């Protein structure tokens, strides 16, 4: 286990290293002179361009620039926004709690809706309910998030006046619609995964044995099947984190919520490259971290894999 742990963490560090190189390159991949792109709205003059080049450190050799970027990033310094002179790290830290609240509530909604539906579907395998849940699930996967968000707002906010249409905060009422918009496609995925793994586990020998032993069905499900079925769920959580962080861009924009997704979109629109770099770097780092933790938990939960 220790061996695996060390290897896994080492891989993650390598990946983070690559991420930092890619993110660093963003500013160099912009076609044309990046200073022109940034200065667009302002009166262009030589002095200003030179000043900005200096500020961005564009006059040094690439490896020096990268070293400096990495060194600062490791110390938590992601530079300063070109648009409002705010510290990038601080801006991201300010926005992060809101995105986390959204992602976690979406995840909880997705797992509870999807889990329950998937579980019932598996237990009623082959019945109309199973077909219905699967149909619901494939539809959930096919609906554009932004369209569903619009429909939810029109119905719940405008027609019923139940939930706010612009939301900013972490109270259940404020989180409900955004989390539902973000979580429904996830619930579809969750329903399928829970159903598939339940079916898989239910057919496994030990369950059959347990049944043969005459244990009540409810006990069989909860004691044996469900616990084993949790393993893919853990993987699911890790995998879907990427989707949640990405999907937050659209959902936060739709509901005018604070968050790093919206920060990313707005920085792209305003060509605030240090901010774009910072958001992308932090998001990727979080994702790598979650993935690493998931993998470790997974191996820890599942001794069979540990031996391989």
């Amino acid at each position, binding site marked *: 286990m220790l061996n695996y742990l060390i290897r896994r963490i080492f891989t993650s560090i390598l990946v983070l290293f690559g991420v930092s190189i890619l993110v660093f390159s963003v500013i160099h991949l912009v*076609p044309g002179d990046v200073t022109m792109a940034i200065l667009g709205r302002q009166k262009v003059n030589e002095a200003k361009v030179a000043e900005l080049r200096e500020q961005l450190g564009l006059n040094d050799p690439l490896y020096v620039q990268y070293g400096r970027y990495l060194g600062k990033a490791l110390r938590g310094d992601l530079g300063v926004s070109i648009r409002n002179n705010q510290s990038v790290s601080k801006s991201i830290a300010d926005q992060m709690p809101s995105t986390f609240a959204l992602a976690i509530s979406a995840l909880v909604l997705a797992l509870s809706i999807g889990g329950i539906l998937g579980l019932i579907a598996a237990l009623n395998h082959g019945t109309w309910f199973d077909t219905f849940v699967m149909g619901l699930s494939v539809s959930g*996967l096919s609906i554009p998030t932004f*369209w569903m968000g*619009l429909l939810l707002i029109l119905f719940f906010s405008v027609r019923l006046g139940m939930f706010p249409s612009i939301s900013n905060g972490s109270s259940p009422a404020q989180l409900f619609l955004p989390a539902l918009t973000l979580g429904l496609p996830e619930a579809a995925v969750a329903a399928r995964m829970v159903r598939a793994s339940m079916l898989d586990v239910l057919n496994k020998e030990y369950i059959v044995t347990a049944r043969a032993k005459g244990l009540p069905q409810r006990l069989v499900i909860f004691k044996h099947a469900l616990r084993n079925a949790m393993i893919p769920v853990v993987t699911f959580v890790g995998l879907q984190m990427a989707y949640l962080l990405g999907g937050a861009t659209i959902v936060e924009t739709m509901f005018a919520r604070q968050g790093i997704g919206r920060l990313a979109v707005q920085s792209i629109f305003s060509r605030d490259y240090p901010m774009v770099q910072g958001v992308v770097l932090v*998001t*990727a780092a979080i994702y790598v971290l979650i993935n690493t933790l998931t993998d470790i938990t997974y191996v820890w939960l599942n001794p069979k894999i540990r031996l391989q």
Partner: protein
Amino acid sequence: MTSNLPQPTFQANSPGARLIKRIFRNRSAQIGSIVLLVLVIASYAAPLFTSKDPNKTAPALALKSPSLEYPMGTDGIGRDNFARFLYGGRLSLRVGLVGITVGALIGITLGLISGYFGGWLDSLLSWFTDVLMAFPDILLALAIIAILGPGITNAMLAIGIAFVPSFMRLTRSSVLALREMTYIEAARSLGSSDARILVKHILPNSMRTLLVLITLGLGSSILAGAALNFLGLGAEPPTPEWGAMLNAGMKFVRQAWWLTVFPGVGIFLAVLSINLIGDAVSDAVAGTTVLTHKK
């Protein structure tokens, strides 16, 4: 992937043909194919269904509700929404198709190389994939657009690149499984070149798993394209496209439901039909691991 004695080519009664037969015996695949076919024909043969110009403005006829003359109503500047829906489908479907094709071509090529040759090249490419995988898809696509600038071509490219890691990973693992199989060994000892072995033997046998990713990926790709267009990062006005039409229609959501409902239904049906086929494909390709849908 341990299918018994896979054949390199598709013949009348080959596993390939059997696979296709198996897929279309599935009811949801049949429904999906019909819906998809209708959408494709409706959009690509648009002039057969409407004589109207999708870009012809007529302010006096703005925001007319659906009627015989205008089956899907008119938009804020009097354009025929039905014509725009039909022509818009072309672009929406094409964005998805081109996106997934770009992703598949690059990803499969890298995966083949990486898995077959192994060594430092494999390590490097796998590392690169891991790095790309560390970015949430939409964010990756947005970052690429931040670099390249908005536009329909860049949007397709961005979607394609976001798909590269999945393809590369899947291809690589399937190549790893096939590489050591006896018939590959045999081909190698008979002096076949690496390129020939890759294209003639390994690729066709990886196709079964890849097929699942391609079909399900096409759905995600259409969704992603619509999302980018919705955010205003794709097609130029006045070019019709479902995502962009939906965004434009939001302004009139209270007066003209037809402007948001029809494009939304269009995207939904296209993706749904493809997902239905995709499910059948993955059922048919037995033993394939469950794929989570990427958005």
